[in-house]
């Protein structure tokens, strides 16, 4: 694999595209996992139950199970499935690479009007979404492959290969990620190992490394571009005379001495690993190539690029069409501090943390004043003064005979659990920690009230009825 040299995007925004928690890229990723995208890339009508992108990390209902693999591959044999997948992944990666390459030269094509910019962005977004789809299927394919390999190796009695953990065939992609970059840095280390690390030649070598691979390194530095200094630090960690990093390059000459049919599957595994890592390279490369598009779009809307990335695709689209941001600055600022996107049933919902429905308000309405209801989790009736423990450090404040009121009990509350006459919690069920401990200790417990810590105050006198799951306030006055 060889990386083409980069066009120079405008200074300062080159790495901005990889900011963690970008709403835009989260949005694009989710779109790439909708049924339509699956159909386009894999020709399969598959729908993921849900995906959540929260605080920059992605969660989805990936179960590694047969259902997912079956939906994607049907009942065809592993070799054909993986081959099909690898082909689709290669095609989508190339589509993104091509789209970004074409777009990177669009500023010379014409001094972009907003319409052109929008057209280009739509083109890129389309490619990006198709590309992202393959993300969700890696893990299933990997599992399929390694299962098939293990089975075949057992049949062919290549015990040694099994013992070596199949590494020879299925190199974990972590070790292959950015191998080209790491190898290049090793070369710098080898060249300047014992020698002059102050000289111009050394600095020039590092500078070249930054310009060749900076786009790859940025995401792992949380969006900060690498510098001569940060590279010097990494160089210190490279041991002298280290073996060259194995590079999975998609070539097929490494496995010539392995018998069929294991060989074929091994080759496929090698190719799969290559595409899996190549995809990341391409994505970073494409991001850096179209950076100028995003910075012009931000400029046209009088926003900085971070604000732009806090918008969804359709919001940017609408804003550019209108000529002004359709999302207020306050909302953008909120999103920059955290957001949550949920894909469910093909629809994407957007949650801003500060705008979540307040459960407590809803629940407050269902409870009569003076009485709190929850689940009866441990029997017995006892009265005492309330002690709210909202933080572990407050646990020691609880006096013997007081009623422990907390969100959920924790084992670390030790002494407080011992001394309390009863437990009342906001959350939990009859099989939760608090309930089990209460029954073992023979103390009344009302669990999952939803509101105890909000309604009850330190010093209130209450009666905890663990038979009926009711807490009654006897005396609202704070002692």
């Amino acid at each position, binding site marked *: 694999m060889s990386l083409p040299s980069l066009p120079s995007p405008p200074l300062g925004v080159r790495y901005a595209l990889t900011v963690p928690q970008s709403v835009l890229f989260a949005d694009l990723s989710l779109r790439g996992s909708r049924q339509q995208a699956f159909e386009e890339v894999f020709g399969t009508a598959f729908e993921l139950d*849900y995906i*959540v992108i*929260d605080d*920059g*990390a*992605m*969660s*989805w*209902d*990936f*179960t*590694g*199970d*047969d*259902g*997912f693999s079956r939906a994607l591959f049907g009942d065809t044999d592993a070799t054909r499935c993986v081959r099909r997948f690898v082909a689709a992944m290669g095609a989508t990666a190339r589509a993104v690479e091509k789209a970004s390459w074409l777009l990177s030269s669009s500023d010379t094509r014409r001094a972009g009007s907003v319409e052109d910019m929008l057209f280009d962005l739509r083109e890129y977004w389309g490619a990006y979404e198709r590309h992202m789809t393959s993300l969700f299927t*890696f*893990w299933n394919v990997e*599992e399929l492959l390694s299962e098939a390999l293990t089975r075949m190796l057992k049949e062919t009695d290549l015990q040694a290969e*099994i013992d070596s*953990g199949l590494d020879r065939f299925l190199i974990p992609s972590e070790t292959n990620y950015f191998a080209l970059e790491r190898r290049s840095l090793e070369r710098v280390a080898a060249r300047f190992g014992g020698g002059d690390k102050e000289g111009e030649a050394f600095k020039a070598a590092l500078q070249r490394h930054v310009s060749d691979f900076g786009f790859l390194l940025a995401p792992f530095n949380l969006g900060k571009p690498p510098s001569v200094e940060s590279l010097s630090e990494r160089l210190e960690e490279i041991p002298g005379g280290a073996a060259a990093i194995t590079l999975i390059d998609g070539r097929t000459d490494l496995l010539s001495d392995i018998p069929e049919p294991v060989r074929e599957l091994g080759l496929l595994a090698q190719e799969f690993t290559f595409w899996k890592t190549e995809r990341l390279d391409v994505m970073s490369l494409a991001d850096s190539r179209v950076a100028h598009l995003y910075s012009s779009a931000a400029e046209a809307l009088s926003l900085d690029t971070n604000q732009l990335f806090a918008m969804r695709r359709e919001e940017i689209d609408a804003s550019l069409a209108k000529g002004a941001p359709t999302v207020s600055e306050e909302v953008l600022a909120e999103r920059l501090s955290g957001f*949550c996107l*949920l894909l*469910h*049933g093909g629809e994407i*919902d957007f*949650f801003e943390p500060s705008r979540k*429905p307040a*459960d407590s308000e809803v*629940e407050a309405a269902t409870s009569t004043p003076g009485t709190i209801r929850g*689940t*009866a989790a*441990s*029997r017995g009736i006892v009265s005492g003064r309330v002690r709210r423990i909202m933080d572990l450090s407050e646990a020691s404040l609880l006096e013997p005979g007081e009623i422990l009121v907390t*969100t*959920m*009990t*924790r*084992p*670390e509350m*030790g*002494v407080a659990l*011992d001394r309390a006459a009863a437990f009342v*919690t906001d*959350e*939990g*069920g*009859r*099989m*939760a*920690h*608090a*309930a*089990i*401990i209460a*029954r*073992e200790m023979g103390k009344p417990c009302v*669990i*999952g009230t*939803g509101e105890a810590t909000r309604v009850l105050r330190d010093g209130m006198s209450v009666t905890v009825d663990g038979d009926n799951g009711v807490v009654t306030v006897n005396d609202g006055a704070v002692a």
Partner: protein
Amino acid sequence: MGETRTQGPRVLWLDDPRCTHPEIVGNKSATLARLMDLGYDIPSGLCLTTAALSAGQGDYEGDLLESTRRLKSPWVARSSSTAEDGYGRAFPGLFTTVLDLPDISSLMRAIEKIERSTHSEVVLTYARKLGVDPQTVKMAILVQSLVPATAAGVAFSRDPVSEAENVVIESNYGLGETVVDGSVTPDSFTVNGDGELIDRTRGTKRHKVVATTLGARVRRVDTSDLERSDLSLNDEDALAVARVTRKLEADLGYPVDVEWAFSGERLYVLQARPITTIESQVS
């Protein structure tokens, strides 16, 4: 210098017959090994034995490294001591479970953390209170493949409060940790002795813990409005959990407290122990 090497295997696969001995692998692993042998769906795993832990990390590291290569990651490490999970002493939450271990170095750190937890002040206090001599407690650790659960929770073969002979199930989306630690109010189901679902109660379940594959692999996320307005188990699945729970009680010979997890259509048993507050008697 005298030979001080502790005798016995360091690492055993859960399906190894020796794993059914609590003094070798601790109570939790021994029960799971027995259940695996009986044909229950138990996530595959490795037992780091009591001998290994008393010999120290340098002694078992090689064996562990070798074996974990054949165990699908990410892993979960759970304590499996000779004190936990007996009648009258669940030690709930006191010994640690570490959920999300993608590689050997994080596994090693988790093992150290679990070992330290045995000596924590909280555990010692609790042990004394229950009349267990902390000196006699032997530690072992169970390392299993993480089950990326779609729904999970706890089931009791008897109602733990009324002691009625109903199976009571608590359930949430994702992994079962939210039900165990009490950080959400889960859905609850009751199945009577005739196998009829006699109660379903929807919990608020504001969060769930899900397995992810990017960055942090296990994450706590808010549930959606749609999820909150629905039950995390359908009737058919709730009845399946109840059947397994009943069968566990029959096979183990005591009322059981079960941690279960659905991954796709498969129902896994993650843990089974006596209900600590109900005397052992099976009708």
